[in-house]
């Protein structure tokens, strides 16, 4: 029987709004679980362009993944360390080409944890995506090989997300024919893969991947919602993975997907007090990440832990 760590790898999530002139960003909401030190230092926080993680995203308008935290790259480094946070992913959201919001996810990487968060991007003159950054505790061998693998459009999880331009979910990645690093995933105990496209208008900037294990899950539930009408009203559940088994309704997190689509921004949620989400492996929080293509919301990926 696989022992699951009491705390999964995902520790906290935040949403930041970027000023219209792109000069600064302010934190508008966050869920911190047991990360009290982070909660206390984050309320009302505002960062100038270039300052800290979100400031760097605002200045460069690209996603950034930190596989270790220091005072320069992460403005609340001491509080993060006190909360057991070792890595962070910041995903920009562009609305009609303008950076409007940044979603930040923070991860634990304590001894014994196994999982990976990866950022796949392109190289000049190549037709493939390669691994730009990875936070991969407990996966030294898998991560070492991943640096040398490149995926063209339509191949592997990064290539499939690139091709479809929507969040994508692969279950059983240790045996999946679509997950081309399956042998390494199986050896490492990775079970579920999620890909999310980072788009700016009609272009793909990067593909963010979450590779989750049963030992220390990055997520317990993931939902992919697609909208043919380009708005919240048209959202339909396309795929779901529920490792928590705590939701009776298949559309349990639909409200958050709808809110993300309506407000055209990432939405974090805290369901630690909600009876509906209670179970042996209960969900406590999550984030809904919309995909905007020009003025349309084409999809929302909901990740809950």
């Amino acid at each position: 029987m696989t022992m699951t760590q009491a705390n999964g790898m995902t520790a906290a999530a935040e949403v930041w709004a970027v000023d219209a002139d792109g000069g600064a960003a302010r934190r508008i909401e966050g869920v911190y679980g047991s990360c009290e030190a982070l909660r206390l230092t984050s309320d009302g926080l505002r960062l100038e362009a270039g300052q800290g993680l979100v400031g760097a995203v605002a200045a460069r308008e690209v996603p950034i993944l930190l596989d270790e935290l220091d005072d320069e790259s992460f403005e609340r480094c001491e509080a993060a360390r006190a909360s057991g946070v070792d890595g962070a992913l910041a995903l920009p959201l562009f609305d009609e080409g303008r950076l409007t919001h940044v979603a930040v996810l923070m991860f634990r990487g304590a001894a014994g944890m196994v999982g990976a968060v990866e950022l796949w991007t392109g190289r000049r003159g190549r037709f493939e995506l390669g691994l730009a950054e990875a936070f991969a505790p407990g996966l030294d061998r898998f991560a070492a090989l991943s640096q040398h693998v490149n995926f063209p459009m339509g191949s592997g999880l990064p290539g499939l997300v690139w091709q479809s331009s929507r969040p994508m979910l692969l279950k059983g990645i240790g045996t999946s024919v679509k997950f081309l690093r399956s042998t390494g995933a199986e050896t490492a105990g990775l079970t579920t893969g999620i890909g999310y496209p980072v788009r700016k208008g009609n272009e793909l900037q990067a593909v963010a991947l979450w590779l989750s294990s049963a030992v220390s899950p990055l997520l317990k539930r993931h939902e992919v919602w697609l909208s043919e009408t380009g708005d919240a009203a048209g959202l339909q559940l396309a795929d779901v993975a529920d490792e928590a088994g705590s939701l009776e309704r298949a559309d349990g997190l639909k409200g958050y997907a709808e809110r993300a689509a309506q407000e055209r921004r990432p939405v974090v949620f805290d369901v630690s007090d909600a009876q509906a989400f209670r179970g042996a492996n209960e969900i406590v929080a999550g984030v809904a990440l919309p995909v905007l293509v020009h003025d349309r919301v084409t999809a929302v990926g909901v990740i809950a832990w």
Partner: protein
Amino acid sequence: MRDRYVEIVNLVKAYPNPVGEPIRVVDGFNFSIREGEIIGVIGHSGCGKSTVLTMVAGLNDITSGDVVVDGKVIDGPGPDRAVVFQSPCLLPWMTAFGNVMLGVKRVYPHATRVQRKEIVEHYLALVGLADAMHKYPRELSGGMQQRVGIARAIALKPKVLLLDEPFGRLDSLTRMDLQDVILGILNESKITTMVITHDVDEAVYMSDRICMMTNGPRARVGQVLNIPFERPRERRAVLEHDLYYDLRGCLVDFLEKFDKHKQPKAQVEAADTEQPAPALLDADTPYGVPLTLAEIGA
């Protein structure tokens, strides 16, 4: 060293089909090669590896798409692209020297007779045939004949060297010997090279990057593996490298996934679906310069 010295863009090879749509053997093959890079191409038998290579060589008509070498779209064969096939195809009535001289005369039309002789002798010596250059093919072993074929190709001073399973008919010791001969030449000459092989160890040992092809029909690039070993390479050091077996395993995994005999029905169906238009990444990684990735048709 130019990043996009060879560019293969949306390459398609289709053959007429009397009972339906043309059969697209290769469909949407996209790849770029840096100047001086050695690219291994691996895939199952019949997947279209040699079709791609012969189209790059200009020996096989391209249905659609482009092959660009050093900024010029290719249009038929030329001395800028030399090919070595599995069988060296030497002219039996000529010595090794005479076989190599054939190409040298074409590429060095203004050289003197003495200069041409020196060039031929230089390249035959480079492949270890200094003492056998006046022998006829029937007097040479298979490995020695292939050395003549290699000398004949590199004596053309090509921009691109195309090797189509060049060691496929040789025993393993001769094969290893010739791998080192070619790598020794390429380390010096920095010729941009594409080598087709079925041998995963050969691919890892020889290549800077390995292009893994999906099964045909509609074959395309399925995955690309960077080989991080420095050049010049020493076989023992490569075999003992921490990553060697993981890289090798990555190739084997890919080939197993595309093994028709083991392939699940869903995978076969997925392979039969229409492939996307190519998307060339034409800017740097996001760290500093935003990545622009044109999604054609999006």
